[in-house]
């Protein structure tokens, strides 16, 4: 049996029950994206008009591989949070909102997984 008062259970967490977690993670990944984007844009510029051989050769550098994996994961966490806010702002019907939030997570996980696995495959030359 929970002996805590209702107030003590929500104190510091707000009505959503997650406190500043969403806000903080959005800022944290935002800062990461800011730095990683510089590396990512450089990577894309280096890949312009590249043949398959030239493109895959870039992954012999572990920093390139790490950069892309970090960019994808940090970016996906950031965009999932962002889309969640958009959905919560515009989709008011409870069922539709839930469906959108689930689809949002599915989409982001799929993007992250295919992206990261592709990079790993390119890095190990599979």
């Amino acid at each position: 049996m929970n002996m805590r008062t209702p107030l003590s259970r929500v104190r510091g967490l707000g009505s959503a029950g997650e406190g500043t977690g969403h806000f903080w993670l959005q800022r944290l990944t935002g800062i990461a994206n800011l730095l990683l984007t510089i590396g990512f844009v450089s990577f894309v510029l280096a890949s312009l008009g590249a043949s398959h051989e030239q493109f895959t050769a870039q992954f012999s550098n572990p920093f390139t591989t790490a950069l892309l994996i970090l960019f994808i994961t940090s970016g996906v966490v950031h965009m999932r949070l962002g889309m969640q806010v958009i959905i919560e702002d515009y989709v008011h019907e409870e069922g539709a909102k839930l469906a959108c939030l689930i689809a949002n997570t599915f989409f982001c996980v799929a993007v992250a997984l295919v992206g990261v696995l592709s990079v790993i495959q390119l890095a190990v030359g599979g």
Partner: protein
Amino acid sequence: MADTPAKGAASARPLSPHLQIYRPAITMIMSIMHRVTGAALYFGTLILVVWLAAAASSPAAFDTMQWLLGTIVGQLVLFGYTWALFNHMLGGIRHFIWDTGAMLEKATTTRLAWLTLVGSLGLTFLVWVVGYIVWL
């Protein structure tokens, strides 16, 4: 609260005005653009993932993607993606500044909004000039 309408019932009370009633201001437009570019980048990640997956799949698949992105339509999409990226990035920096409580004065926010727009266009053109030099 005897006169409170039942949940879901239409209320005769006035609602607070929404976007369409205000005269557009640059701060408001750039705020909207931050959300719009964020949503665009969300779906734009598909291009990145398909590109990487194609490279991981086969040289032929990668060549097809490289060709596709090099067409006029492909370049236009990538140009838009570049601008969305920089617009959202500079907009994010603006939010980081505001998070500290600084630069929230009316005149300053207006200047920051213009700076975001001009800066994002400038960075986009810079990257594309460098891109064409590398590519050609």
